[in-house]
Structure formats: C-alpha cells, structure tokens
C-alpha cells in the first residue's frame, strides 16, 4: 500500500489548480501537490528531480509554451522519464486529442466539463487507484 498520493499537476489555470487542491482537501486526502504551469516547467521539475517518487502526473492539454501533447511526446522519448504514470485532465473532448493522448500511453483521460466544478470524481478515482497501485521503485 502506498502512502500519501504525490501529484505533479501540470495546469496553467490558477482557478483549476485551486479547484483541484480544494477537492483533495474536501476528501481529507493528505497529499503533496506540486504544480507546474506548463509543459516546459513540468519538464524542468522532473529533470531536477524536485518531486519525490513515487508520484503521478495530472496533465492539462492546452497550455502556453509546451502543450500537454508535446509534453507527452517529450516524456515518452526520454529514457529517464518514460515510465511516468500520466493522467490527462482537460476541457477538450476532441476525439483526436483523446486518441493522440492514449497513443502516448496515458493511464486515463478525464474531461473537466464532465467532472463537475469540483473534480471530486477525479480525486476519488486517483485516490482509489493510488491505494492499490504498484509503481517501479527508485
């Protein structure tokens, strides 16, 4: 069983970020959320190893500088980082985005519109997933 859920949240929107933090608090889940404001920032954090393993990534798609799909591309071509578990959390219900994301081996695709304004559903899923999940160590 894993301890606290560690999340790298790649999200350019402050309110969405606050919203997710609130949802975790609401579920009384003690966790560590690290925020990156876009793909470039997220890569910096990952390469500096700022985030303690194990962790999962919650990724927005539309972001400045480096989009979610570009981030996925980079991660999957990086020998050091390509085993990271990534969930997409976006407003885009575009079929192309969904297909492209899964081709980059994401663990799941959540729609912001569909998950109410509080992301409680997403938090519940991630929490349940985290409790029984086995991730590579180190």
């Amino acid at each position, binding site marked *: 069983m894993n301890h606290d859920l560690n999340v790298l949240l790649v999200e350019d*929107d402050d*309110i*969405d970020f*606050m*919203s997710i933090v*609130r949802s975790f608090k609401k579920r009384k889940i003690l966790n560590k959320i690290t925020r990156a404001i876009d793909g470039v920032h997220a890569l910096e954090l990952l390469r500096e190893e700022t985030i303690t393993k194990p962790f999962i990534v919650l990724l927005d798609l539309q972001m400045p500088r480096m989009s979610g799909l570009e981030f996925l591309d980079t991660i999957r071509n990086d020998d050091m980082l390509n085993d990271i578990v990534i969930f997409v959390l976006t*407003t885009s219900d575009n079929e192309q985005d969904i297909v492209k994301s899964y081709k980059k081996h994401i663990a799941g695709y959540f729609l*912001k519109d569909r998950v109410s*304004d509080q992301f409680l559903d997403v938090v519940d899923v991630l929490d349940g997933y985290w409790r029984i999940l086995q991730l590579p160590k180190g």
Partner: protein
Amino acid sequence: MDKKSPSDTAEFNISAYDQAEFNDLLFENMPDYAFVKNDSFKIVKANSAFLSMYPTNIRDKVIGYTTVEDYQPKEAELFLARDKEAFEQGYSETVETITFPDHRIRTLLTRKKRFEAIDGRTYILGIATDVTEREELIEKLRKSNDDLDQFAYMASHDLKAPLTAIAKLVSWIDEDHRSELPVGAIENFELIKSRINRMTQLLNDMLTYSRVNQTPHEKEEFSFKDLVLEQFDMICIDKEFNLSCCELIVSLQKDAIAIVLRNLLANAIKHHHLDHGNIDVTIEEKKGFYLIKVTDDGPGIDPQYSSKIFEMFQTLKPRDQQEGSGIGLAICKKIANHYAGDITLIDQPNGTSFLVTWPSVPTQQPPFKRIK
C-alpha cells in the same frame, strides 16, 4: 403585358438559308467561348470570343490545329480527357481553371456536346462560360462562412473557461463564508449564479449552433413515433403534458431531425402558460418531401414575429421572466436549411404550430442543366 400580334410571330419565320446565317450570327456573337472540334481534336470552327484568347500573332494557327501546345501540359491533358469523354458518352461538363494562351488565368465552365454532321463525321460543340468571378465569390463566401463558424466556436469555447472560473469562485465564497455574509449579499450571489447559468446556456447553444452541421448525418430508417417519444421523455420531466404522435417509418437523417424535434418540443413545454398541456406531432409523406408539424395549445406566437423568432438571440420575453438563449429556433432553421428543408410558423388562432419540410429524396442535383 402586350399580346403578341400575328405579324410579330411572322417576322421570326425565317427561311432555312436565313436560319443558317442566323445561327452563325448567334455563334459569332455569343459572349461564351464557342468552338467545334473534329474527332482528331482539331478545332474546325471557333467564334471571335474563343479566338480572342490567343495572342493576335497566332490567331491564324487555331482553326485546323489542336492548339494543345498553347496550354500548360497538365491543363491540356484535362481538357483532352473531357473531349474524349464527350466523344464517347455524348456529353461532358467541367469547371476548369485554364491558363489562356495570352497568359490570363480564368476559370471556365465548359460543356461539350457530341453531334453528327451531314458528312457522317462526329464533332463536339464546346461552349465555355467564364465563371472566374463567380467561382471566386463562392470561394470567398465559403471561406467567410467557415471563418464565422470557427469564430463562434472559438469565442464560445474560450468564453466558457473564465465563466467556469467565476462560477467556482462564487461557489467557494458561498461554501466558506456563507454564515458571515449579510442577507443582501447572499441574494446578490444567487443572482450572480443564475446569470452564470444563463451565460453557460448561451455559450453551449452558440457552440451547438456553430457545430451543428459539421458532422454529416447519414440517412437511416427509423420509427418517427419512437424518435418523438424518446425526445419528449428527455425533456418533459416534471410537467404534465400529453403527447400524441402519428407513426411512420421514415428514412431520414435521424440525429439532425432529433435536434429539431427536441427544440420544438422543449419550446412547447417551456413557453406554455400552464404547467400542463397538449402537444401533437404529425408527419406526412408528400412527393419528394416530408411535412412534420408540431402543434401545442400554449399561448401562441403573434404572427408579426413569425420571422424574427428564427433569428439568433431573439426572445419574445425578457430573459428574467423566461430563461432561454434565443438560439433554439435558429439552430432548427440552420439544420433544416442545411438539408434543403425549411421551418415556418403556421398562422393559427390558438396555440403554436411549426411546420418543418424535409426533403425525402437526395437534393444533390447536377449543378447545371444539360444541353439537349
């Protein structure tokens, strides 16, 4: 209008000899590029408009020549293919962009018709109409329509993000500080929430409007009655409405029809002056099209608004009295028109009745009538 006097008609009775001369006059003076080719693709006759495509110094090298070498190889290949098609099948028609021998680039609608002359040999008569301006305008119009749809999509999509953020912040203030707020502030917060919902509805409907005909709906066979009942059950949730609907198995674009029916049924319920009422839906098959009628016993619509109601953002009541984006009927009209149908308000003393016409046969016709 004046009646035709017998002497007028008599003046058109020209002799066979005059007829030939008249035909030449017609051929020579028509604004279209007209030419006759023989079965070895050589031009044997051409009018002055056709000859004017060629620079003056080579105009004597047109009649009796194929003139293929005067054109770009790719373009020549295309019009020779149409020549062959006309010789083999009797007729060909194409819209083509051609670089003229005098280097002008024009778009032509070219029709080629095979005929047999007294000498027993077959020829083709070619008539090419310059449609460059028309095609350019069509292209511009298409682009600006696409841009408009794209703009509406982007605008409604991007406006939704800050709106969602506002909605969240308001609900957080409510959650965290409700007990500290004075009554007046709480009332205003409720108003903010209702306006947020209204704007969300508006943006969602705008999105629907801009995307509505982007997905092509294929025809499928289905029970009209089942579709109406299905849509009705989705909308009529907490109100007592009676629905009557006739049955007909139809072959139509189901998903598109469903959107139209859903909007009409929702309007009938929403705008009814009572919380109960009757709705009647009928469908009739006519020659080449269906007539769908949705009638209710609500307050009715003043006929003076019969066209205004189909415009974007039009509502007949202030939105504070009756929630609505004012886009529903505009969506219905856009869909019906897309499938070459229409929707109109029927003038009647009681209640409201909408008539939808929807073609049952493919409406794709050849763009131009063929020459006989």
